């Protein structure tokens, strides 16, 4: 059923009891033209673009839990394209442009809110870094500029500007098109649109092995039985190294927990996404009024989706440094996700090992914003067997050739 003002009004009158399920609960068939492991945003978007752009609908997305139960449902929903290298901006701005039309395209409200993002500096040295990044953004053709102290303070009136504050706003980088979106809606919207085009979305399906014959992938073994395919996309975030190991491929990926926190809801007090370079903590206010808070990685590699106390303390002390008045707020929830961190802090997109196997992983702390692009690019590789111009620089071979895309050094992202 298409969502519209008419269907909404009609179903409201019928007590909301007759909405059809958003996507079909599929059972695995014996064979598919392409199989994607991982029902996060990247896997679901891949399936959607395979069907829509490449006309391939004998496609399955295999998800061991429920769709969006991984990092896609665990992140702090920040979307931006303020990166340093042209390769990165091409990737993340493709995603942002697709996000800008996504609700209409999917007929599903992903609640994109382009409220802008301020990366705030507190020292002359940080201002220099901001200057450099704002400059790079302009050279790369995305909206971005340096913001001065006065405008920054007006943007975030509750920020700690007391005489004894350790981190007083000096200004920062502003990207007006940045913002947030509803993360579950991104997963559900892609799932619904893909399902309507015939893609099978199979939840509760754990991929346990990958079958390779004569150097080419021929299928996967799952808890629901074998499934044949000769095109396999791996989009399983922190679980990707374990899956790649099944075909003898080792990846440059460490897994770490990354945590998020949500406060009780309050009246509107913050209408932008704010990151302090000095504390590493960032936050935004949800449409319900909760503060959604994040920070850097935990320091201990792990596969446990919960996070540890030292990182929690660091993030929350950052919040209080930024907004002393928030000390009165209660935290409602805390959780962690296992993120796949690559040495140059850029994703891995490209073929791996046996013919027919393609990777979409290594998004680390920042892959939610990239979902529409990650899906477009993995779909392109699965459909054509070859790189897209935008995915080419992110191939695994960059570690051999030395052409790293070091965004930690370039745009100062936290890992």
């Amino acid at each position, binding site marked *: 059923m298409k969502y519209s003002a008419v269907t909404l009004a009609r179903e409201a009158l019928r007590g909301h009891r007759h909405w059809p399920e958003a996507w079909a609960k599929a059972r695995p068939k014996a064979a598919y033209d392409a199989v994607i492991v991982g029902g996060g945003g990247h896997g679901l978007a891949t399936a959607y673009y395979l069907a829509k752009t490449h006309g391939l609908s004998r496609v399955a997305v295999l998800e061991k839990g429920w769709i969006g139960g991984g990092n896609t449902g665990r992140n702090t929903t920040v979307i931006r394209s303020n990166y340093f290298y042209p390769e990165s901006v091409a990737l993340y701005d493709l995603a942002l442009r697709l996000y800008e039309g996504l609700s209409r395209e999917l007929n599903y409200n992903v609640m994109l809110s382009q409220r802008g993002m301020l990366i705030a500096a507190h020292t002359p040295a940080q201002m220099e870094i901001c200057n450099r990044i704002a400059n790079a953004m302009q050279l790369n053709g995305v909206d971005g500029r340096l913001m001065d102290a006065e405008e920054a303070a007006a943007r975030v009136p509750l920020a700690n500007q007391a005489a004894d504050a350790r981190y007083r706003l000096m200004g920062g980088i502003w990207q007006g098109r940045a913002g947030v979106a509803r993360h579950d809606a991104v997963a559900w919207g892609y799932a619904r649109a893909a399902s309507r085009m015939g893609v099978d979305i199979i939840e509760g399906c754990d991929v346990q092995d990958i079958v390779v014959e004569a150097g080419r992938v021929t299928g996967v073994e799952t808890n629901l039985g074998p499934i044949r395919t000769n095109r396999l996309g791996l989009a399983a975030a922190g*679980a990707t*190294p*374990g899956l790649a*190991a099944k075909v003898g491929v*080792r*990846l*440059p*990926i*460490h*897994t770490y927990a990354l945590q998020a926190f949500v406060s009780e809801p309050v009246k509107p007090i913050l209408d932008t996404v704010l990151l302090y370079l000095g504390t590493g903590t960032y936050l935004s206010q949800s449409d319900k009024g909760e503060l959604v808070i994040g920070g850097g990685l935990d*320091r*201990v*590699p*792990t*596969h*446990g989706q919960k996070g*540890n*106390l*030292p990182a929690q303390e660091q993030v929350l002390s950052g919040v209080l440094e930024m907004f002393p008045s928030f000390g009165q707020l209660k935290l409602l929830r805390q959780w962690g996700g296992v993120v796949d961190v690559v*040495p140059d802090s850029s994703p891995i997109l490209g073929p791996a090992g046996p013919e027919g196997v393609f990777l979409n992983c290594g998004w680390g702390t920042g892959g939610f914003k990239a979902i529409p692009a990650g899906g477009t690019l993995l779909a392109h590789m699965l459909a054509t067997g070859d790189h897209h111009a935008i995915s080419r620089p992110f191939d695994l071979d960059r*570690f*051999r*050739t030395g052409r790293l895309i070091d965004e930690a050094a370039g745009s100062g992202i936290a890992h």
Partner: protein
Amino acid sequence: MQRFPCPFCGPRAETEFHFAVEAGHPRPDGAPSDADWAAYLYDVDAPKGPAREMWLHVTCGTYFLMTRDTQTREILGAEDLG
């Protein structure tokens, strides 16, 4: 706050330690190919479950080998490198 076992100092707060590198990836001999060298520099196993890792106790400067379950975070042992 978890405690990690420094073979020299005994149990200390996890914040005093730095993860250094996964154990068991020896440096290739001779003149390795670019691919072998890149694999040595970057590729890891990132196992889910028991893992052998090199850690640094920052406060005393000791590197040691720790065995740890990366899923449960249980410490399974620490070895002095001698």
